[in-house]
């Protein structure tokens, strides 16, 4: 039955295992999903073709390996082994290559000379090893060799099957294709070693590592098979015994021959924080990069590479690149790390972790993120192409390309009904947060967290949101909750620190921020919070140092640079501030906060035109925000000051009116407004606004001085026709003459005799009004510009 070893559909021994095995579920879904029908057909076809070739290869095989023969006839049923990464990759591990060979290259060689390859394989493992590995490689080779053959449809398969009805192999094949998952394997037919392997695999799947280790150890001692060594190492890895993994794998020089083993060893070294050793093993750059490039020479080579990639999993090359990136980032070499991650995701788009590292850890600037996204080739994902592409899209920064994000979210919601999925919701939440719609954001967060309370993707935004809203009580509850349930996650301590921050307990906050950072040094919000504690205490030097570290840690995040600029600005070092702002601006030119700060900087440098430009751009950015948001208001205010400096007082006042419509009262707003009215010579208004300012902030000396000045002006103001006193007198006269009572009134007193109204009082004081009327000119009321807003 060896020919049934297509990587597609070999069932597992137990349904239980089937359900949990990562290998199987992968394949299983492929056979079941109707969308994959075509692919499955193709595979079936290939298998059929393989079968035709079967005799020769099998013969050769048998020739070469005397002791293998029929003992392993049912080997193909071992899903785990067949699809074992080692099994797949060791075939490709060449001896001919000087250091590390690309799998693609190897297939090419296989193509050239099949028999040589087999010999090589044989020599590599020695005759004594009747490994499944080899069989896999043989099968794979055949499969590849024939992949270019004209595709046959299912009918052909049926025909073929009919041709070989009496062939025993065919029956097996039929069962695997039609009832891949339901076939019960007759355990009794297996050899003893096979049974042990099954045992090992099953206990591994059920996380019973001691059993797995125990059995694996026995198997390895019996067979001395590198494959079994690999699996034993795998068990060690799961147990966390990284040292033992390394020891085991380096014993048989497996680390130099098998890429999978290398990967595992590097992973272990990484976990043991032996970064240099790890780098030694996998190399400082991607060794495959050049070969991949040359492999594009021939068309058939390409197609073979395509086939190889189509095994559905993540390409080992990509994983290696990712691992390399992680090592670099652990060594704080962020440029290299970024390149490695980028390479990883470019080699295989399925390597989401690499993509996540790039987007979440602020390695890329928003623009770079979008560029990368556009470079990615999703075509190999088949029918999932659009969905995955949209999913990746919503991971990107929402500072730019907002419409693309909305579109992606719409597609995901409508076509894939992923509206309730965590990533889609997260996108929405983050958008709300960056647009300062905190209440809305909070609602979304709480809705989602109600059924997934410990989601570490949502929690940071949720906590920041609570901080924004000053919800210290809720933060208290949340952080306690987290501390009870996941005390080992950095997010927990971030929450605790934020709670102290809202209470203004700086020392405690700093303590917990640093605790969080020890757990995850790349947790950007905690970093920034940590630095803010220094800034809040006015420890400029420490703040500056910490900000620069943060800027180095998060090259794709403009905030550290911006804060650096702000620190320098508060130290009145405008040149440095400008430099840092420019750096931040290069990273993200859309952030209203940054634009605002730049506006402020130029304001301080007395370059008001420039300031106006930046502030206006900031206004554009916040145009769709909640107008009561602090950001929007502070930008407006800064703009007002700029207009003021530019001498455009009318415009400044107009701007202010807009702010006052929406915002709460603030002493400084009134102060500036008073100042502006003073400038445009509206004394009365100026004084009344300055009074308001002083009412809100009694100790404001600027307001006091301005008020004094205004009052001085008020004294010398000539009492002419425009003086408010004169104006109000005139108005009073006007009112006296206004008919309050319409003439066509029906309720006239002729019909309703006043019964209990006293005689009209004679009011001596009012008698003077006739006199005053005479003395004043009759002029129409001077209407104030903004007195009324009727209709």
């Amino acid at each position, binding site marked *: 039955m060896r020919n049934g070893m297509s990587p597609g559909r070999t069932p597992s021994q137990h349904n239980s295992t089937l359900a949990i095995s990562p290998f199987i579920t992968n394949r299983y879904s492929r056979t079941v999903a109707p969308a994959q029908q075509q692919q499955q057909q193709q595979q079936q076809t290939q298998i059929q073709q393989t079968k035709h070739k079967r005799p020769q290869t099998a013969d050769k095989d048998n020739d070469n390996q005397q002791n293998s023969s029929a003992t392993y006839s049912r080997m193909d049923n071992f899903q785990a082994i067949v699809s074992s990464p080692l099994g797949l990759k060791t075939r490709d591990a060449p001896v001919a290559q000087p250091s590390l060979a690309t799998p693609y290259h190897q297939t090419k060689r296989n193509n050239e000379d099949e028999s040589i390859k087999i010999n090589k394989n044989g020599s590599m493992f020695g005759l004594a090893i009747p490994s499944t590995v080899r069989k896999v490689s043989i099968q794979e080779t055949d499969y590849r060799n024939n992949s270019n053959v004209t595709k046959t449809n299912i009918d052909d398969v049926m025909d073929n099957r009919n041709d070989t009805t009496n062939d025993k192999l065919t029956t097996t094949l039929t069962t695997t294709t039609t009832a891949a998952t339901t076939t019960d394997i007759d355990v009794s037919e297996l050899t003893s070693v096979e049974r042990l392997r099954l045992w090992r695999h099953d206990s591994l799947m059920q996380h019973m590592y001691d059993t797995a280790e125990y059995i694996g150890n026995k198997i390895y001692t019996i067979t001395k098979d590198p494959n079994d060594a690999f699996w034993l190492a795998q068990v060690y890895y799961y147990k966390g015994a990284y040292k033992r993994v390394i020891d085991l794998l380096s014993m048989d020089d497996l680390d130099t021959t098998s890429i999978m083993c290398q990967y595992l060893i590097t992973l272990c070294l990484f976990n043991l924080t032996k970064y240099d050793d790890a780098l030694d093993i996998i190399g400082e750059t991607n060794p495959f990069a050049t070969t991949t490039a040359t492999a594009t020479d021939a068309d058939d080579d390409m197609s073979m590479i395509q086939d190889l990639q189509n095994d559905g999993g993540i390409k080992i090359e990509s994983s290696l690149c990712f691992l390399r990136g992680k090592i670099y980032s652990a060594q704080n070499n962020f440029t290299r790390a970024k390149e490695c991650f980028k390479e990883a995701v470019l080699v295989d788009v399925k390597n989401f972790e690499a993509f996540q590292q790039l987007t979440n850890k602020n390695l890329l600037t928003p623009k770079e993120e979008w560029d990368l996204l556009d470079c990615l080739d999703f075509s190999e994902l088949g029918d999932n192409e659009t969905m995955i592409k949209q999913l990746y899209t919503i991971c990107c920064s929402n500072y730019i390309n907002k419409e693309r994000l909305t579109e992606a979210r719409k597609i995901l919601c409508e076509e894939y009904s992923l509206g309730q999925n965590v990533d889609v919701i997260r996108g929405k939440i983050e958008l709300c947060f960056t647009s300062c719609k905190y209440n809305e954001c909070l609602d979304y967060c709480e809705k989602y967290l109600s059924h997934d309370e410990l989601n570490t993707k949502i929690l940071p935004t949720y906590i920041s949101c609570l901080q924004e809203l*000053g919800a210290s009580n809720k933060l208290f509850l949340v952080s306690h909750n987290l501390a009870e349930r996941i005390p080992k996650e950095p997010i927990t301590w971030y929450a605790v620190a934020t709670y102290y921050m809202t209470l203004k307990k700086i020392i405690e906050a700093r303590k917990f921020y640093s605790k969080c950072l020890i757990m995850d040094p790349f947790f950007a919000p905690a970093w920034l919070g940590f630095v803010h504690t220094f800034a809040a205490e006015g420890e400029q030097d420490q703040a500056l140092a910490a900000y620069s570290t943060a800027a180095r840690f998060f090259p794709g995040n403009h905030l550290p640079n911006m804060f650096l600029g702000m620190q320098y600005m508060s130290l009145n070092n405008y040149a440095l501030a400008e430099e840092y702002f420019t750096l931040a601006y290069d990273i993200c030119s859309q952030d209203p906060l940054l634009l605002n700060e730049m506006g402020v900087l130029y304001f301080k440098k007395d370059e008001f035109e420039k300031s106006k430009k930046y502030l206006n751009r900031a206004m554009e950015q916040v145009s769709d925000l909640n107008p009561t948001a602090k950001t929007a208001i502070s930008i407006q205010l800064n703009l007002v000051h700029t207009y003021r400096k530019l001498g455009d007082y009318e415009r400044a006042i107009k701007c202010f009116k807009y702010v006052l419509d929406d915002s709460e009262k603030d002493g400084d707003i009134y102060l500036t407004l008073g100042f502006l009215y003073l400038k445009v010579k509206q004394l009365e208004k100026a004084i009344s606004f300055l009074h308001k300012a002083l009412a809100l902030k009694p100790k404001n000396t600027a307001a006091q001085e301005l008020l004094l000045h205004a009052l001085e002006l008020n004294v010398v103001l000539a009492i002419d026709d425009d003086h408010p006193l004169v104006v109000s007198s005139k108005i009073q006269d006007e009112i006296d003459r206004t008919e309050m009572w319409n003439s066509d009134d029906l309720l006239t007193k002729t019909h309703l005799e006043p019964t209990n109204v006293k005689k009209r009082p004679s009011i001596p004081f009012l008698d003077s009004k006739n006199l005053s009327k005479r003395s004043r000119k009759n002029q129409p009321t001077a209407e104030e510009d903004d007195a009324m807003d009727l209709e």
Partner: protein
Amino acid sequence: MNEINTIEILRDVRDSLRCSSIQLSQWKLMKSAKWSIEALHGMEDTPLASGDISEEHMADASSSSSPSKMLFNDPRVRKIPQLNDGFTQDEFDKYLLASSLFDCKEFDRCAYFLENVTEPRLKFLQLYCKYLSWDKKTVESVENILVTGKVKNGNNINDNIDMIENGDSEQNAEMNGFTDFTNTQSKQKNGVQYMEDGHQSSVALLLKELRDYLNANESNFLNSKDTELGVALLYYLKGVLLNQNGNKPQALTAFINSLSLYSYNWTCWIELLDCVSRLDESLLILKHLNEQFELSQQNNIGTQQIGSQNVMLKFFKLSLFQEFSGNIDEFLENLELLLTVTPNFAFLKAQNALVYYNHMDYANSENIFDQIIKIDPYRLEDLDIYSNILYVMQKQSKLAYLAQFVSQIDRFRPETCSIIANYYSARQEHEKSIMYFRRALILNKKSTSAWTLMGHEFVELKNSHAAVECYRRAVDINNRDFRAWYGLGQAYEVLDMHMYSLYYFQKACALKPLDRRMWQATAECYSKLKHSGGAIKCYQRALQLSANPDQESLLFYRLAQQYEEAGEMDNCKHYMTKCMELERTNEGLVTDEAIKAKLWLANDAFQNKKYEEAYNLAIGITNGTSQEVEEARTIARNCRMLLK
């Protein structure tokens, strides 16, 4: 013809008041509802109306000989609005729940259960609850400071909020800009109440929600007539919120919108009045109401749709006059008319009394208040004014009786506290008086008169700074209160800050341009600031406004002084002479100013070498201070010597 119309109008007014009372109490606008039903009660036994109706319907409704026996199922009586009008069953149940919670003062709960309602009336109730809840919390935080005795409040709360807000330094850090100009560029969020569970409420947020709702449903409202009451209520709330936010012009628009949809909402008229802060504005609003104000068909019954016939409009004009004064004849006509409509309405009587009070005719005012107490003995509204009158008239025993009486009715009403405070003030127990004013203010922080009177008490205690704070509060709440402005001016005068006091006197003067005292105070300030030009103008204006401009010896003398300062000796002399001549017209009654004027003139004549004239003037000075008499004698002696 006119007679029938009159009857019709009266009937419509009656129906409108009845309906509005029911609807408004359904929607928890209790004050308005109370006002409506009191007004209805006040017109109950209008003799003319009852007689006519019974006459008119004698033929077909012989059984009901008197309208008081007319049953509600009578087809001539307009249908009484039902609680469930225009509701689906679900909405009605929701309303009942919300209504109960509201009555138990559980505003947060009420708002919570009304979340996501779309029916405009329910939406109103929800937002109204939110507002009340916010208000309650804000008041509570202010109260503490009031109770502990610090008059100046607000700062402590603001500081706390500052603390909270500076916490989110990431966002706040961007505000470090412009610190050179404004010392602390911090928050915009005074008055935000944090629930600490992430919910916050502020007037701005409520306003935004309300605006969003109104904008989203604008088209629906235009099409359907059924929602008019709800929309009117929402506009009313919008106005209240805007007013709270200090945005008076927009609030005014909202109130007018609300009133044109539903005019029988008295508090809405009061709020509208509150939005008018200047004389010219009052003129404009009057013009607008007379010419453009349209009343909707739906909620205004019969003749009440016509602006000129709408009783509420007339009531509003009455109140407008009280605030801004105007043509007194028109006003009295108006008042008489309304008194024929609702003869027993205590509110209207109180308005009548207020007019007398405002024109300082205290005796008449007192009479009317006595009447009011007879009709409605337990009504506490406006009685604080009554106590002011008694205070001014120095009727101590009556004031004491009133204080005792009202404290028996309800000790925890702001009016009661004010009355008791007045009583203590009359007994010269100013500390106690201040305590009671403070109590009154805790109960109603918007009472300007209490703030102002408290200011007066502080002045009595020579605590000018505290007085200033009180007056400030008063003008913050109602910047039309000329007494508070005047008080501010006086307090600053005591503090020798004439520049400030000038501004406040100017304010008071602008509000009461026909009050001589205001002009005189302003003029005095000008003179103290050595700005004789302004002083002269103001004195002259005061003179013009004087009741008998030929008798103002003080004004003449001051004017003369100012002209002297300005170097216009001719004018100076003219007024000095005028001042002196008053002596003659007053038949020998000599004022201090006349003596001073005479002395000045004598001096002047002496200097101009008119010794004879100087001599004559100088010997005329027989009384006055010893110094003056001495000086006059010196002049006379010198003159005599020189003449010889």
